[in-house]
């Protein structure tokens, strides 16, 4: 068997050309950021399928009232937490890290990341941490406290199982991996830009990853310290009592530390997606991004505000009412920078000469559906409403509109957008569009009805529910199965096209302006033949554009 591939995909040695094993080894040990990025993507898509499967088990169980496919209610109790851990820590976050690894060094005109070995280490920590996190599946000792792991439920008194200890260690390791990647991204973007690529010339995807890296840097270690405390308390219950009231500890302290990470984590999971949308929309509208400086500053504003709102997850814990009002106000304030972004995207496509390729469809789908999740966020940020809706399916609907109609749609937009760059081949457009329409429609079938279920009082995470909710649960379950099945269209399309698709040209979409579209598809190792020079483009506003410039040409 002979391995024929171009660019960075080509075998590195003579032996690698003839032996698949050697070729795969070359991948596993490669410090090329593009290969690491692709490995991240493959790993996270596998984990995404795993997490999706768990959610299907949940939905099948909830299809009708009473026990259905799962007879062991303890197993059911573990599923929501395991689904969330898989999706958050091993699907969405690594997916963006993967896209970032592939795209960012190219966009800033660098040959590779600043610390290639650190990069490879960060990647290989992830499979190990995934094994630990989900070790409970192998020897039937799954933690049943959900992904939030609130003590005292998660202490060794109420969860006296090995799987829980390993879960905690796995989460700490996943945090270590993502901080390593964040350190790497920051050093890369701040120090390795090519000539002319000043900070306010950076493509918005690069900006979004920079901001996200700051968030990871400041938020993830707080989760690690909470998890280390929890682990100490679990392993040495006689000595450590940080969170158990019986020993003078404070369970609310855990919630503060946990949400100090986990609220910024929501932005860690959506800001790179915002960046991807800011790449996709201008390319397919054949216009420059509207309001570039404000797009950057609104990212900064979201990330700063994101650190000041964590207690809005704790309105029902009995914290002082003045504090709750403060957090409510700050939470609602986030709608302003987010609104700036939404309207700038609308202004970007306004008057553009639009092309409706699959990445653009996902971008527009995001633009249409994400605000539903954003606005239901404003609803639950309000203290009195939240006390009613807390821990109901309304929250489930909200978070899934943000993460599925938000993050996952942007991930698909990004993967379809850069797929020709990554593989050198075009995906199948018909099946891409099919994937989009099924996804966009069945996201709504699955999650929209959950708003109503939540308002009527159906609690989340429960094994059973009142029979009056049966019809809408049936709708949601059917939707989720179709939604899950539709994702395999993408998998098959991607795998088939990577080998058999039409060959893609360098500037696949004709209108890409950033550096990745100026080099061959797929790029070579070290990206550029010689150090590129970035010719600055107008980043400000239409009025600054000279006559005949890109703005004037297509805008107005």
């Amino acid at each position: 068997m002979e391995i024929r591939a171009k660019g960075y995909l080509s075998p590195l040695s003579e032996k690698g050309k003839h032996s698949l094993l050697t070729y795969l080894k070359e991948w596993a040990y490669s410090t090329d950021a593009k290969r690491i990025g692709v490995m991240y993507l493959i790993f996270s898509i596998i984990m995404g399928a795993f997490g999706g499967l768990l959610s299907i088990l949940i939905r099948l169980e909830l299809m009708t009232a009473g026990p259905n496919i799962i007879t062991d209610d303890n197993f059911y109790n573990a599923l929501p937490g395991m689904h969330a851990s898989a999706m958050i820590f091993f699907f969405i976050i690594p997916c963006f890290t993967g896209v970032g690894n592939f795209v960012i060094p190219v966009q800033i005109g660098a040959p590779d990341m600043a610390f290639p070995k650190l990069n490879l280490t960060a990647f290989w920590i992830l499979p190990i941490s995934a094994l630990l996190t989900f070790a409970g599946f192998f020897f039937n000792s799954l933690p049943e406290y959900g992904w939030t792991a609130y003590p005292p439920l998660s202490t060794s008194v109420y969860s006296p199982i090995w799987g829980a200890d390993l879960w905690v260690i796995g989460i700490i390791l996943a945090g270590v991996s993502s901080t390593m990647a964040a350190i790497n991204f920051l050093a890369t973007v701040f120090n390795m830009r090519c000539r002319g690529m000043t900070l306010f010339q950076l493509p918005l995807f690069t900006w979004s990853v920079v901001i996200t890296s700051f968030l990871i840097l400041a938020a993830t270690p707080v989760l690690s310290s909470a998890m280390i405390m929890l682990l100490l308390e679990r392993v040495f219950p006689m000595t450590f009592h940080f969170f158990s009231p019986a020993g003078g500890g404070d369970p609310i302290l855990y919630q503060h530390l946990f949400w100090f990470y986990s609220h910024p984590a929501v932005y860690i999971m959506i800001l790179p997606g915002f960046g991807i949308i800011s790449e996709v929309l201008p390319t397919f509208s054949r216009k420059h991004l509207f309001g570039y400086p404000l797009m950057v500053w609104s990212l900064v504003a979201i990330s700063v505000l994101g650190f000041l709102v964590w207690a809005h997850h704790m309105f029902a814990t009995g914290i002082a009412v003045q504090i709750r009002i403060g957090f409510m106000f700050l939470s609602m304030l986030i709608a302003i920078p987010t609104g700036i972004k939404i309207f700038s995207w609308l202004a970007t496509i306004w008057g553009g000469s639009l092309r409706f390729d699959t990445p653009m469809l996902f971008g527009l789908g995001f633009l249409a559906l994400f605000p539903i999740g954003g606005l239901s966020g404003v609803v639950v940020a309000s203290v009195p409403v939240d006390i009613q809706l807390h821990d109901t399916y309304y929250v489930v609907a909200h978070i899934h509109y943000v993460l599925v109609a938000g993050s996952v749609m942007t991930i698909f937009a990004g993967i379809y957008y850069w797929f020709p760059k990554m593989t050198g081949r075009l995906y199948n457009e018909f099946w891409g569009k099919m994937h989009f329409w099924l996804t966009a429609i069945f996201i709504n079938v699955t999650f929209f009805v959950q708003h109503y279920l939540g308002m009527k009082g159906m609690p989340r995470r429960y094994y059973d529910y009142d029979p009056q909710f049966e019809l809408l649960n049936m709708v949601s379950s059917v939707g989720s199965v179709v939604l899950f099945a539709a994702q395999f269209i993408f998998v098959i399309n991607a795998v088939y096209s990577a080998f058999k698709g039409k060959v893609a040209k360098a500037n696949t979409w004709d209108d890409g302006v950033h550096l990745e579209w100026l080099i061959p598809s797929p790029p070579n190792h070290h990206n550029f033949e010689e150090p590129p020079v970035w010719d600055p483009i107008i980043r400000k506003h239409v009025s600054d554009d000279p006559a005949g410039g890109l703005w004037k040409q297509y805008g107005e």
Partner: protein
Amino acid sequence: MATHDATVAFPNTGEETLGVANGKLGMWTFLVMDAMTFAGFLAGYARLRWSAGSNWPMPLETFGPVGIQLTALNTFILICSSVSIVHVLAEQMRGNMVAARKWMAVTVVGGLIFLGIQGFEWTHLILDVFPGVVSNGLNPNFVGTFLGLTGFHGLHVSVGVIYNLILYLGIRNGKIRSEDTSIIEIAGLYWHFVDLVWILVFTFVYLI
């Protein structure tokens, strides 16, 4: 093509940079991360200690004046080893690698003395003092937070000692030369950070 000054000084960087080596940027951002980890522990400590009815033991009574003086001495030793790593860099910049190596040995020994005294203190506290705290009905989190904070910091000192030892061997083998100042400077950043955090931990746990 013409190269920017920064590219000459730090061959791994691009043309638009912040004017420092990649490694230094990496260490600074790592330290931000590490500082936030300690902030998580310290915030937990503060919340557990300064809440109504926490029944927290008085540090001065629990450790005793001699215990606090011993730890003050330990703090002094750690600060001294922070000074000595500055001497490593200074001697290296003068090109005197023999003196740099000796100062690095002083730094390593300073870290080891700190760990030794802390080990002695832990043994004493665990065997003689902490059982009393728990049996007197005082808040047992005094013990937990003490072990957590000083233990996590001690782990950092241990890592720093190993780090400095590797650099010591590097200087001895001639792998770190007088022009490789950024390697020593980056290690210095870490070591100063460990020192700085200790001053916070010492203040919170022993003095206040």
